[in-house]
């Protein structure tokens, strides 16, 4: 069953045509991979889905009905959470403050800090995330721990689609393995995951469906079990075109 459909989406930044007539869909309960070279337009497409950018033309359907998010707040309210490539965490705030950023629990006009700390502890424990303490400042965490916090935030709040833009690009082998486990946990939990990755082995390991972008276009899509690393590479580099 399709959870999100992108239909003919185009977006230009001045003279740079970042997205050209992109059409693809993301199934509920699956890990969908999005691959492509640097500059192919993956992050820009993700930002359209997350309500950061608005497409010049085309439309996005979520759960069968067209959506037009006015801000990241709108997409989050609909159940779309994003782990952005540039790690959207505030280093000087604590883990729990980041987990609840713009989703703070309040009692009257005041923050319910106790409840947020307790709930943050549970969120971290549910995903078996390895962080020193939820009261630690993000500045003191390693790259892998930060990524885990960002994923934890995306997984919380009953999100239905979790988008991850190159979540393991900056991580070591062990940290990558942990994050991959997290991604599987999310799918087994019934959520749809859109995974952007440069690591084709990882894509073949994790995903159910692969979409390939090149030069702002979506140039192909196939079921992961029916494809090979070589086929993906040739689509990414353009030695084989399917459109």
């Amino acid at each position, binding site marked *: 069953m399709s959870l999100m459909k992108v239909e003919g989406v185009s977006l230009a930044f001045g003279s740079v045509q970042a997205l050209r007539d992109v059409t693809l869909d993301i199934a509920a309960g699956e890990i969908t991979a999005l691959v492509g070279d640097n500059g192919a337009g993956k992050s820009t497409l993700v930002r359209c889905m997350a309500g*950061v950018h608005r497409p010049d033309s085309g439309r996005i359907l979520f759960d069968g009905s067209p959506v037009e998010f006015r801000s990241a707040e709108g997409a989050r309210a609909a159940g779309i959470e994003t782990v*952005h490539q540039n790690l959207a965490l*505030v280093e000087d705030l604590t883990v729990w403050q980041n987990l609840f*950023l*713009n989703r*703070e629990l309040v009692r009257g006009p*005041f923050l319910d800090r106790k409840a947020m700390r307790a709930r943050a502890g549970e969120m971290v424990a549910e995903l078996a995330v*390895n962080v020193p303490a939820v009261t*630690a400042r993000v500045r003191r965490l390693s790259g892998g721990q930060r990524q885990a916090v960002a994923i934890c935030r995306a997984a919380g709040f009953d999100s239905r689609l979790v988008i991850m833009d190159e979540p393991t690009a900056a991580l070591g082998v062990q940290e990558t393995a942990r994050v991959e486990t997290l991604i599987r946990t999310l799918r087994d939990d019934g959520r749809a995951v859109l995974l952007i990755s440069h690591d084709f082995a990882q894509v073949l390991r994790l995903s159910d469906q692969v979409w390939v972008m090149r030069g702002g276009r979506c140039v192909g899509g196939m079921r992961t079990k029916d494809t090979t690393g070589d086929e993906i590479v040739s689509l990414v580099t353009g030695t084989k075109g399917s459109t």
Partner: protein
Amino acid sequence: MTAHATAAPPAPAFWRDPGQWADRAAAVGLVVLVVIFQIANPTFLSAGNIRSMLVASAILVVLSIGQAFVVATGGIDLSVASTMTFAAVLFGFGFSRGWGVLACCLLALVGGGLVGLACGVLVGRGRITDFVVTLGALSAASGAALVIADGKPVTVIDAGLLALSAGGIGPIGWSVVIAAVLAVGAHVLLFRTRLGTHVLAVGGNPEAATATGISVARIKTVVYTLSGVLAGIAAILLVSRVGAAEPASNTSFLLNSVAAVVLGGVSLAGGRGTITGPVLGALLLTALANGLTLLGVSPFYQPLAVGIVVVAAAFLTRWRR
């Protein structure tokens, strides 16, 4: 916490950790100054002198609170002192036309708030650099003050306003009470409300704040408006202390408000800050001026001393984590 929980690295002993000293530069500096001045002149810590230092610090404390919020978002408000002058002149404008003191106070608050709002909208929505916008506001507000006052002071004599500067709760003056209440309120706002968290988030990482749906433009507008309203309150305290509304430049208040915030450990890059720090910073600067005067040092040396203290504090922040 979890099966994977790793122990946090052991913190170094408090007194050997330069980061701790840097975070508490204002408190440490204040204690050092108090000890030095008390040894040099035992009347420094007399009840009368403490009282007059607190009264003298009230205006700077109020301005520094506003400055702290702006700096916490990664901005800077160069217009605080001029906005205060502008609001004071508005007060005098109303007073000279026979308005009641309450109406004059309201006029000062609204005037200050509007200058702040204008700065906030230009910075937030117009995306013009904080420095440029508030530099423009500095000039515009002091110019407007000169125009409205026609360059002349208005004497303000009113029993109620006199009580503000002369009366108080027991030995503590009303202006000190007002500054203290504002400081406590500001602390609660910064650390116990969503708005405060969003202020720190916008200063720490504007992109991250935006990605969670926080509006950077809205937060910028709020902090500059807050700073403007606080400048309006400072204007009322100033008028009550001087007994007149004058279009004076008050530049030292601007420099000292930034100095108090830096001394108070608020990061000029944004994202980190407290209210206690800048308040202690303002007290330190006032104690410095008072102590030097008590020792008979020429007032010409005061700006020099302030400069040295601020640079020394900025130097300490190199060790912050």
